[in-house]
């Protein structure tokens, strides 16, 4: 690996810890980011000459802090003095090394940095954009590309989000156990959102949006390293790995969606699957179940099946049942119905989803699944109505194309035999 590539990777990996610590010192996001930026510039000059430091994050924190303090001192001479409280523990820069080595703040610094991004006032898309910018250090251009919007629009979105966060009270005191758990849950939910933003891409944009999935996995792993005994964080990381392992098989050459049953399982990433399975295995031992663990366990059952017909649908049905109790939602029931159709047949499954009709009347997947059940039951006219509705509600061209494939099959099958044979 070249110097530049190595430094780039080191800066990226040190970023959450360094910006988190700098934020604690300066209590201002812009100052912290600028300090990190300055430290990174010095690293680009110094590291190739002097060799990489043993602890890149520690180096960046020290240098970033010193440069920022120098800047503040310089501006003090020119301007009226700023309030001392504006800069926390300005005079004990020497202690920084000792403090860094003790590392007790490390966890909460990173958690705080992530937690700021999930401020409840921010809409989900702004939370994600902010986290990718501040924590992951992606450029505005990279984020704009992943979100399929212009750079200017993304710049504005991030600036607005930052302003809103700056106005809010950022909690700097070390969190208590309950608070820490709450922060952890909020951050986990945000990481899941980042992943979904990438995962719900259509075939033509999947490659562009894949970095969102990869970034979410990186953040989940980071969180898990900080909170090693949290089964739900193990579950979240496992879930993301097991889902992303199928990325290469989810779209065909034309960008059309390939359903699980039809995917070429040789394309699944076995390395990610191995890590995901190891993690869910580890999580289950705690006997403290949660929604991420259950979803990961379901993904694990799919991953373990070498062929679609090997899938343990009975177990998947049970797991969805447990998820329904924990997180009642019509979407969960809809997913469960797919498992039920495999175990107890399409009639039972159809009866299960009928009561959801009013709540999912605008949900693409509801009509896709309903159409599929009706088709299996040979109720082709009704199936066609459901598929038509699904196409109207499709979010991506890949979704629409997939349903159209079903429709084409229905039309083909309903043609009189003679016509078909004559072709």
């Amino acid at each position, binding site marked *: *690996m070249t110097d530049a*590539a*190595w430094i780039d*990777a*080191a800066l*990226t*990996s*040190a970023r959450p810890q360094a910006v988190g610590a700098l934020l604690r010192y300066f209590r201002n996001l812009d100052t912290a980011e600028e300090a990190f930026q300055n430290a990174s510039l010095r690293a680009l000059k110094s590291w190739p000459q002097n060799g990489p430091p043993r602890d*890149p994050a520690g180096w960046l924190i020290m240098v970033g802090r010193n440069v920022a303090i120098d800047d503040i001192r310089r501006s003090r001479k020119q301007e009226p003095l700023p309030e001392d409280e504006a800069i926390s523990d300005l005079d004990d820069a020497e202690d920084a090394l000792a403090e860094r080595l003790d590392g007790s703040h490390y966890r909460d610094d990173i958690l705080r940095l992530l937690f700021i991004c999930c401020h409840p006032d921010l809409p989900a898309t702004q939370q994600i954009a902010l986290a990718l910018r501040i924590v992951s250090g992606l450029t505005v251009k990279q984020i704009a590309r992943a979100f399929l919007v212009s750079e200017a629009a993304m710049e504005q979105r991030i600036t607005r989000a930052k302003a809103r966060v700056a106005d809010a009270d950022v909690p700097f005191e070390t969190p208590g156990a309950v608070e820490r758990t709450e922060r952890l849950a909020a951050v986990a939910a945000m990481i899941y959102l980042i992943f979904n933003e990438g995962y719900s891409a259509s075939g033509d944009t999947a490659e562009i949006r894949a970095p969102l999935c990869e970034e979410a996995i*990186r953040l989940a*792993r*980071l969180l*898990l*390293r900080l909170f*090693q*005994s949290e089964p739900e964080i*193990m579950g979240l*990381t496992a879930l993301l790995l097991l889902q992303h392992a199928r990325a290469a098989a989810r779209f065909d050459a034309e960008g059309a969606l390939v359903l699980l049953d039809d995917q070429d399982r040789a394309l699944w990433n076995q*390395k990610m699957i*191995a*890590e995901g399975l*190891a*993690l869910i*295995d*580890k999580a289950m*031992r705690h006997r403290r179940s949660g929604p991420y663990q259950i979803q990961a366990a379901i993904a694990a059952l799919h991953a373990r099946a070498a062929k679609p017909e090997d899938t343990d649908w009975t177990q998947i049905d049970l797991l969805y049942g447990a998820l329904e109790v924990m997180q009642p939602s019509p979407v969960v029931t809809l997913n469960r119905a797919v498992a039920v159709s495999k175990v107890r047949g399409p009639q039972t499954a159809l009866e299960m989803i009928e009561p959801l009709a009013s709540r999912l009347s605008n949900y693409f997947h509801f009509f896709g699944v309903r159409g599929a059940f009706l088709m299996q039951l040979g109720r082709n006219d009704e199936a066609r109505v459901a598929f038509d509705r699904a196409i109207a509600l499709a979010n991506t061209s890949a979704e629409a194309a997939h349903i159209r494939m079903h429709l084409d099959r229905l039309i083909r099958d309903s043609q009189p035999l003679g016509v078909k044979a004559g072709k």
Partner: protein
Amino acid sequence: MLYAILCYHDEDTVGSWTSEQDAAVMKKLAVVQEKLKKQGRLGPVARLLPTTAATTLRKDDPPVVLDGPYAETKEQLLGFYLVDCKNLDEALDVARDLGAANPGGAYEIRPVGLFQPGSRAT
């Protein structure tokens, strides 16, 4: 004499490599491995999954299972086993059996992501 070469690196950094960067490193390593393999000198090669997938068994009485990698620096790595297990529970059972035979210290249990048997004639 057989020598074990144990690989250490900053996991944050390795985890930040793109899959292309990772593949490039593995490719360069493969060249070195191939040379040793042809000479019949290469034993098993393993790449472990990240420490997030690790579990530690402290060989106290009774043994204590902890999440995460082995973190103490006071004790040194003395050796390792590769054991085929269906799941973590099975691996922990093996570790407990070994621990009963040799109490004190700890076992770190890490799933293996990549395993190559090597070329050395036994």
